[in-house]
């Protein structure tokens, strides 16, 4: 038990790759929270996929003990957050559990799009913000200029920003002092009041079952307590409570202002809703916490097992992952060609790819991912409105009055020399320019863009046309009517629903051609030639022909070669498992997403 005055809870926020996780490493290390032997770079990025991609996907909490220069003992709870725009919900949710933010800015890069976005979220959460200029060890670092930029662009005081190198450790003591001196302790908290705790996050652990991350506002949580989730009404006995250091460490109790975890015999994933308020079953608190704004999935796609016998395994995997990730939604879907599967909602394409990779790896299920789509609003002639999550469900056109598509406000920061390329990209994607301002040699452009032009590959394209120098953030703004049509893809004269997409009529020919060309490369040659067509209604607007396999025969095969040959056959078989049959044509599973990525 620590009194409120000696607790500091904070989030580390920044644009992607500005060094949040590396700073967390240094804070953990300099307070001897983890032994030298167990220390490694980006310690908190523990998922395979995080380590491979070098990014944080899941927010992580660590409790560290710190003896300040004034001799006082403090308990610090830090939350390392992800930087990629797809995971913005993780960040805003984490911020609700703490009182302050360390705003990390790469001193060689300066303020980027997510720097801005995070500041706004922090201000909304009433946070105290401490700016931290990182990577001062780099020759290209310009801390003074970046400090100025922070004041100009963001409008917060950067005169006493911490200058650090998370890599070398320079400036870390200053950060620790700033945390206890400049960030506030928890605002209130009554030990004797009824238990009131925020359900910040929950996930599935294969040993412990469901683990719940909580922030105690009032009261005390003890092992053996009977608790109740106020929103879902679910009731559980608490088996374990503890804190993350970052390994799980049991504690006797969690009191006001503290952050820790609990486990119980929680079976139902649905019962642990992030943002819910946890209280005691008896003598509970009266008023729940305000809860979180729900996240809104913006990209939808179907996930189907390649092997239809694995449907139940897929259900299990999806339910567990959804628990781990509050911003991922799903419902069952059936398709004539693909059988049973799920229609899933994601915050963006990276989010989709991460979930898909995790299902494939952690649960060993091969997946078919259908062409991603955003949600369209269809206004029927009879005056009703339908939400379209899946182009395959597009109703009969004669009954449709008009369609509306989601739009976003995109903020892009880019060095001068690439501005032209960025404007062209936005223009090509049907964007409407709303604002263009300069901060030094960097331009900030604001565009109104259709979400469906952005969701699949805009970020990749932006990175490639600006050699990685542009940054990007977006918010949904609303819906607008436009001339949208459903484009079908026919492979060997049969429509493949999983490849149907909604496109703007003016862009249809271009998209259709690009998709047919891509598919021609993605589908392996067969023993017959395969026409690949894009069509709107019954009208073909683009066509490619995949020529027939001409030669595929092993030149030499004698007695001793049969084993070698058999291996080849087994390899072919394994490859085939990653394909799905449409009529007589086998389409590889990765084709459904890859076909949509435009090279422009």
């Amino acid at each position: 038990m620590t009194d409120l005055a000696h607790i500091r809870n904070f989030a580390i926020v920044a644009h992607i790759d500005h060094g949040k996780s590396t700073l967390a490493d240094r804070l953990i290390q300099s307070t001897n929270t983890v032994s030298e032997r167990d220390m490694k770079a980006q310690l908190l990025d523990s998922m395979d996929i995080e380590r491979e991609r070098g990014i944080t996907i899941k927010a992580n909490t660590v409790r560290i003990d710190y003896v300040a220069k004034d001799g006082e003992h403090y308990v610090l709870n830090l939350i390392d957050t992800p930087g990629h725009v797809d995971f913005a919900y993780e960040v805003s949710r984490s911020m609700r559990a703490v009182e302050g933010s360390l705003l990390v800015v790469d001193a060689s890069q300066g303020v980027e799009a997510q720097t801005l976005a995070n500041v706004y979220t922090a201000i909304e959460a009433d946070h105290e913000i401490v700016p931290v200029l990182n990577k001062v060890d780099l020759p290209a670092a310009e801390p003074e200029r970046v400090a100025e930029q922070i004041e100009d662009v963001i409008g917060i005081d950067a005169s006493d920003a911490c200058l650090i190198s998370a890599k070398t450790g320079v400036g870390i003591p200053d950060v620790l002092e700033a945390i206890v001196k400049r960030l506030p302790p928890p605002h209130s908290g009554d030990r004797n009041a009824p238990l009131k705790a925020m359900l910040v996050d929950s996930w599935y652990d294969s040993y412990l079952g469901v683990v719940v991350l909580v922030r105690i506002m009032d009261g005390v949580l003890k092992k053996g307590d009977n608790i109740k989730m106020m929103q879902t009404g679910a009731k559980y006995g608490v088996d374990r409570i503890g804190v993350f250091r970052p390994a799980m460490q049991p504690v006797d109790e969690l009191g006001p202002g503290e952050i820790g975890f609990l486990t119980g015999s929680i079976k139902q994933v649905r019962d642990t809703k992030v943002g819910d308020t946890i209280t005691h079953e008896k003598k509970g608190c009266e008023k729940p916490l305000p809860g979180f704004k729900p996240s809104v999935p913006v990209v939808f796609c179907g996930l189907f097992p390649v092997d239809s016998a694995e449907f139940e395994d897929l259900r299990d995997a999806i339910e567990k992952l959804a628990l781990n990730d509050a911003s991922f939604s799903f419902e069952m879907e059936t398709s004539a060609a693909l059988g049973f599967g799920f229609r899933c909602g994601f915050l963006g394409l990276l989010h989709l790819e991460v979930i898909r990779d995790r299902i494939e790896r952690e649960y060993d299920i091969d997946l078919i991912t259908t062409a991603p789509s955003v949600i369209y609003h269809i206004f029927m002639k009879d005056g009703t409105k339908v939400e379209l999550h899946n182009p395959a469900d597009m109703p009969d056109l004669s009954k449709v009055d008009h369609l509306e598509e989601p739009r976003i406000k995109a903020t892009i920061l880019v060095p001068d020399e690439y501005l032209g390329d960025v404007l062209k990209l936005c223009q090509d994607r049907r964007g409407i320019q709303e604002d263009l301002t300069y901060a030094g040699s960097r331009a900030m452009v604001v565009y109104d863009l259709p979400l469906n032009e952005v969701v699949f590959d805009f970020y990749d394209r932006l990175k490639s046309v600006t050699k990685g120098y542009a940054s990007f953030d977006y918010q949904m703004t609303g819906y607008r009517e436009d001339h949208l049509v459903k484009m079908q893809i026919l492979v060997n004269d049969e429509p493949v629903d999983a490849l149907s997409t909604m496109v703007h009529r003016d862009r249809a020919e271009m998209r259709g051609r690009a998709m047919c060309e891509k598919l021609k490369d993605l589908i392996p040659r067969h023993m017959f030639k395969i026409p690949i067509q894009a069509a709107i209604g019954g009208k073909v607007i683009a066509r490619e022909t995949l020529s027939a396999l001409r030669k595929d025969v092993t030149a030499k095969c004698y007695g001793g070669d049969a084993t070698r040959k058999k291996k080849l056959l087994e390899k072919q078989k394994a490859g085939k498992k990653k394909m799905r049959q449409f009529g007589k044509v086998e389409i590889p599973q990765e084709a459904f997403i890859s076909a949509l990525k435009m090279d422009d």
Partner: protein
Amino acid sequence: MRSANSWQAALIEDWRNGGFGLYLHWPFCEAKCPYCDFNSHVSRQIDQTAWQVAYLSEIERVGALTKDRVLNSVFFGGGTPSLMNPDLVDAILEKIRDTWTLANDLEVTLEANPGSVEAGRFKAYSEAGVNRVSMGFQALNNRDLRRLGRIHTVEEGRRAFDIARSTFKRVSFDLIYARQEQAPEDWRAELTEALNMAVDHLSLYQLTIEQGTAFGDRYNAGKLRDLPNDDAAAEMYEITQEVCDAFGMPAYEVSNHARPDAESRHNMIYWRYGDYAGIGPGAHGRLTLNGKKHATEAFRQPNLWLERALGGNGDSVVGALTPQDMAGEYLIMGMRINDGIDVTRFEALAGQSINQDGLRDLLDWGMVTATPNEISTTRAGRMVLNAVIEKLMPDQ
């Protein structure tokens, strides 16, 4: 549906469908060719007397397992068996005659490299009982022979070939095509020249870049330049069929051409999925023992094999094949030849029938022809044989 019993009965007799042969592997060469991934090694010192003891002992061991068989063929393969002392070949053939009943028309083939030294031994090989030679000519111009890392010249090769022709009743040679910088028309001319040498058997292999060879490494590094692309290679295959047909030497297997009755009987045992014993480093065998087809595989490393063979058994692996294994092997081998596969026999080996959906598609597309009891590829089907086999495999 046939009963399990009759399948069993069919299986016991199965090997007779293909005949019985003996493969002997000699693992040494004078130089290692950059494209070659065979079990061949360059070694300064080879104690041929010790090798002789090993081979004879292995023949005795394998002979005891297959006593009652009539031997149709013996094949000395390599490596470069034409580096074997004629005495060694003689002792081995002598031992073979003591071990098995021999077919009247026993075929004894020896793979020979077309160098002058080898040619000097041809007469002695013939006297030992070799009656067929298969020569690794590979190319008919010196630039390409050098690029293939071959140590003989065209002139030496032709001389060796002439000597072989006057020594053995049957002579075949190998060519490799789709070489660097080779255009389809170059190949047509070279092949015509080869056919004009009045052979009755030719093996014509498209160059395969094998992983783990010098060519494989160069290819991966992007340094094996000017290889014909897939379309050019396919065209060369078509030219091969056309030119050989015109010369009365049609293909009887994917890469093998012969005048009628001049086929390699030994290799036909493999393709008919018959029984064969394999002796020597890395040699494979397929033997029906106690009514079950077994796979055997000898230790690959030459000195290890020698040591084990001298110790009483050179095999590293022996195991019964599963019905799935046999199904795959019979398809892979059998579909390579004009006769194709026998449906009843396939069912006996596999314990299930051929993939009917696949068969229907292949018939539709003109890739195979089928009678009630036989399935074989068409010309078009043979060119995409790997895909055809995949389609015919039962789903299980």
